[in-house]
């Protein structure tokens, strides 16, 4: 799409970025946009730590023998990779960065309902992160990110209690973000912005918040029980003392399965924004896409025990959960079909955000379809704890959530920074990420189907798996480059990028009707909404003035 010619900004215009300077103006800020940037820096830091562990894992698997690291180290590598990526990158990624930045702007509010709680949430995240780093530096944890009892409670020699505390604290940061979003979306909408006019990004974040609010407390109390059990040998999860380890798994997955939807739902919200904008069309089936977000949030709570089919729970329960797991595919499919229908006869622009959106569509569909395999009892038993599962959830979390996150970062970067990123590099990066991702994880589907178990550092008794593992490691290297590129050119653009106009994509949505970067209170005048979301036909119609708020 052609960028609008940048409107020269008067040098003295006050924005949230230049209003105040100094460390404390950031560390004590209650401005949701500044807090979003604090989150952006912190989660990027953890993303690269988690990525570093992933790279070591892939390097170890380059050869069948266990040569780079030994078993204990390898166990710690995949545990820390999982814990860091899930609790310190994926869960906060889109909600705490883009959500924080955009939810108030999209609904025409000056800030979130509880700005100080928002800041508190970031500090909790940082406290959790520091605990996690300390835990890592003093030896790490080898329980797997799932920290199953009774291994975690009775056997591991690593310091799980500290890692548990880190997750506990980070969990409350996540709850506070969700609480803020729910209240903000209910109470702070601009006049005229009815629920049926909300951007789908808002619907997605609303659904995400529901999961954060209702799921996270359960894992919090589970961590309390695990820590108490580990410290005092109570017997709650210890079969030797009459406890039931499966109870741990039930409680753990009651949160951790819906947690997948905490990661993917916001990415789906981003998809709706990007696909509508770069097809220049209203989202097909708006209300279906909106309500499918809520449906995913609710159904997501009904399926957790498909993680436990081989764990020894009752056959009847396995049947029930298998059936329910299929049900959650319905709202996800509704979304994919509606996005595809939006593309149909749209005037499609292949800008970088849209390339990420296409990547998301394909990869998420792959991840979702293989998820159906795993919902089927028989196949699940066959591929349990193999690389098939690893590939499946990476297609959802990396192919889905991270693709969405990157697409969103590109889409809103002009709004966040007031600068344009270099489009050519961005398209190249999107392509590299897509290729690198598939090269990394597609071979893992095959590996898993052939029977390579996950969490093994040494496969020297099955050297025939090496070719696919080499491909996967090569892909991980490409993927690493693909992730470094955006960081470099985003940083570059902050100084050297062309100034962005208020609405470089000519997109609908209130966040584009204020300056780039926005002033501290987002809008100089309270917006009044009189139009439906995604009114692209209206925007693109000749001789129509763009509806904008006077500045």
């Amino acid at each position, binding site marked *: 799409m052609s960028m609008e010619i940048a409107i020269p900004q008067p040098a003295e215009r006050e924005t949230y970025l230049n209003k105040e300077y100094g460390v404390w103006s950031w560390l004590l800020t209650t401005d949701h946009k500044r807090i979003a940037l604090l989150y952006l820096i912190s989660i990027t830091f953890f993303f690269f730590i988690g990525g570093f562990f992933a790279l070591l894992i892939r390097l170890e698997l380059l050869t069948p023998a266990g040569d780079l690291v030994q078993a204990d180290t390898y166990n710690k590598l995949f545990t820390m990779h999982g814990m860091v990526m899930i609790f310190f990158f994926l869960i906060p990624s889109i909600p705490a960065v883009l959500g924080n930045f955009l939810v108030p702007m999209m609904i025409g509010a000056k800030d979130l309902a509880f700005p100080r709680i928002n800041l508190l949430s970031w500090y909790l995240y940082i406290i959790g992160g520091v605990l996690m780093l300390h835990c890592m530096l003093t030896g790490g944890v080898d329980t797997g990110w799932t920290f199953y009892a009774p291994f975690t409670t009775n056997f591991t020699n690593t310091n799980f209690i500290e890692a548990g505390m880190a997750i506990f604290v980070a969990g409350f940061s996540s709850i506070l973000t969700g609480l803020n979003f729910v209240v903000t979306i*209910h109470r702070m909408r601009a006049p005229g912005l009815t629920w049926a006019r909300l951007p789908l990004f808002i619907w997605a974040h609303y659904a995400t918040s529901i999961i954060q609010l*209702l799921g996270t407390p*359960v894992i919090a109390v589970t961590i309390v029980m695990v820590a108490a059990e580990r410290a005092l040998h109570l017997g709650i999860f210890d079969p030797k003392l009459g406890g039931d380890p*499966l*109870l741990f798994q*039930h409680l753990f997955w*009651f949160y951790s399965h819906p947690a997948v939807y905490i990661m993917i739902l916001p990415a789906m919200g981003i998809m709706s924004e990007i696909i509508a904008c770069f097809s220049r069309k209203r989202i097909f089936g708006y209300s279906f896409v909106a309500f499918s977000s809520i449906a995913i949030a609710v159904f997501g*709570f*009904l399926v*957790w*025990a498909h993680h436990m089919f081989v764990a020894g*729970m*009752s*056959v*009847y*329960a396995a049947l*029930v*959960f298998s059936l329910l797991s299929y049900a959650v595919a319905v709202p996800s499919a509704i979304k994919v079909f509606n996005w595809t229908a939006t593309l149909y006869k749209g005037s499609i622009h292949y800008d970088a955000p849209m390339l990420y959106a296409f990547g998301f569509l394909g990869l998420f569909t792959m991840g979702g379809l293989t998820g159906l395999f795993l919902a089927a009892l028989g196949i699940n038993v066959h591929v349990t704890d193999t690389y098939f599962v690893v590939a499946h959830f990476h297609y959802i979390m990396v192919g889905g959530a991270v693709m969405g996150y990157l697409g969103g970062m590109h889409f809103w970067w002009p709004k966040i920074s007031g600068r344009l990123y270099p489009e050519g590099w961005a398209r190249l990066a999107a392509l590299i990420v897509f290729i690198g991702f598939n090269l990394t994880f597609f071979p893992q589907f095959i590996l898993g189907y052939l029977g390579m178990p996950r969490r093994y550092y040494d496969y020297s008794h099955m050297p025939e798996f090496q070719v696919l593992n080499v491909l996967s490691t090569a892909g991980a290297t490409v993927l690493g480059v693909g992730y470094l590129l955006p960081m470099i050119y985003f940083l570059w653009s902050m100084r050297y990028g062309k100034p962005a106009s208020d609405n470089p994509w000519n997109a609908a949505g209130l966040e584009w009707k204020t300056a780039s970067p926005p002033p501290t209170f987002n809008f100089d005048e309270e917006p009044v909404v009189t139009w439906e979301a995604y009114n692209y036909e209206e925007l693109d119609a000749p001789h129509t003035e763009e509806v904008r708020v006077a500045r």
Partner: protein
Amino acid sequence: MSTHSSSSSSPLKMYFAVFFALLVGTGLTVFAATLDLGRFNAAVALGIATVKATLVALFFMHVWHASEKLTKLVVIGALFFLLLLLGLTMTDYATRLWS
């Protein structure tokens, strides 16, 4: 949601009535626990507790007079998810052949 949406008449009577009902409920629970009702002991105890909790929520927490449905939705929603947690976990525990 403002709590003064009810009429201007003093709600004190209602507060004290609920208070006495709660005390009576407590006494009733203790008394019922001393009776041998077989498997219904638990049902009676939980039933009384639920009545008491409902009284507190409706009248002390003003859910009854809440000016909007959203409060009720939040309460009912949370209870629904609690029942999901308990109910779906029980699909496993109630149907295990080996325990």
